[in-house]
């Protein structure tokens, strides 16, 4: 017995752990200090495991739970917007969009990217605060409104919170981004990428969808459809994207649309930017509620 006892403390420890079950007085004779060390080490281990679980839970929250929360808010914003649009007492009798008096977080337009399927549509809200972007894509308050000359700029989440702009890197030149306001439809199309610019007229520009998307000149020289910039590059939402100093006269000012989101996914190191130009404008007709821009059918 004595030699077995001598074999190692481990053997004694095991019976010590089972102390409640094994009626052996021997392990209890161990110093109390040992138990405290054990408790501390175990507590530390449990704390680490718990921390790991919390981090995992945070990932689940970020990627899935925020989606659910945002989907509810987006539904509410869309319903509120539909109510407002169908209320003839708002905005008087004239069929003209009035912008500018929207509250932060209030929906005022809907955007569609037909390429992402007929069910890809989001209500665009005013403002780009965290609370607004939780509802849906948010309009930079200082930028133009849909259809206006200037740069209608919209920010959207790429991960969680509904992730409206998850796939905007897949938008190609000439792909449509359709914006619906109360009285109009505006079709924007992504402008050429840098490598497509040379030989545009003979190349991709021949596609009938690309009408009106040719590379722009003048102050818009250097504008490309998609790029990745640093977060400090606020010029991308300037009236002339990427050229904040330019101030073209009203006639030369194009109607642009800009989308911004984070890049790469799960990081805020950079921003992914998509620029599009207005190619078609369609007034809604109360007598023809089914009148919609043809671009909406370009699903794929």
């Amino acid at each position: 017995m004595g030699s077995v006892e001598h074999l190692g403390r481990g053997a004694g420890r095991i019976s010590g752990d089972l102390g409640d079950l094994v009626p052996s007085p021997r392990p209890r004779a161990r110093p109390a200090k040992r138990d405290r060390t054990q408790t501390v080490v175990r507590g530390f281990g449990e704390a680490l495991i718990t921390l790991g679980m919390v981090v995992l839970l945070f990932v689940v929250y970020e990627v899935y739970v925020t989606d659910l929360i945002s989907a509810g808010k987006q539904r509410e914003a869309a319903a509120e917007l539909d109510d407002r649009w169908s209320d003839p007492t708002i905005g008087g009798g004239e069929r003209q969009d009035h912008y500018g008096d929207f509250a932060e977080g209030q929906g005022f337009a809907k955007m569609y990217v037909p390429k992402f399927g007929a069910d890809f549509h989001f209500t665009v809200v005013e403002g780009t605060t965290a609370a607004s972007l939780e509802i849906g894509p948010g309009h930079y308050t200082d930028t133009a409104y849909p259809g206006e000359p200037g740069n209608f700029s919209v920010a959207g989440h790429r991960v969680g919170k509904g992730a409206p702009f998850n796939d905007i890197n897949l938008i190609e030149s000439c792909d449509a981004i359709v914006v619906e306001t109360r009285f109009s439809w505006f079709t924007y199309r992504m402008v050429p990428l840098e490598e497509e610019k040379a030989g545009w007229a003979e190349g991709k520009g021949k596609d009938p969808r690309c009408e009106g998307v040719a590379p722009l000149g003048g102050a818009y020289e250097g504008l490309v459809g998609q790029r990745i910039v640093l977060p400090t590059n606020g010029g991308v939402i300037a009236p002339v994207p990427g050229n904040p100093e330019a101030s073209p006269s009203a006639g030369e000012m194009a109607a642009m649309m800009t989308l911004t989101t984070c890049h790469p996914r799960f990081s805020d190191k950079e921003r992914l930017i998509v620029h599009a130009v207005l190619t078609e404008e369609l007034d809604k007709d109360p007598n023809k509620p089914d009148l919609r821009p043809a671009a909406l059918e370009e699903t794929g």
Partner: protein
Amino acid sequence: MYSWIWRHLPGPIAVRVALAVVLAAGVIALLLFVVFPWLEPLLPFNNVTTE
């Protein structure tokens, strides 16, 4: 930590299990609806605007 909580839960084993589940659910709800929404804007994950 967990064994301490377990030892301090009252009642027979079924009640203890139920209490433990309720406790865990409470902690998860607290994390999901209070702690994470507060924490999230402080982390560099999801800023989508330019300055």
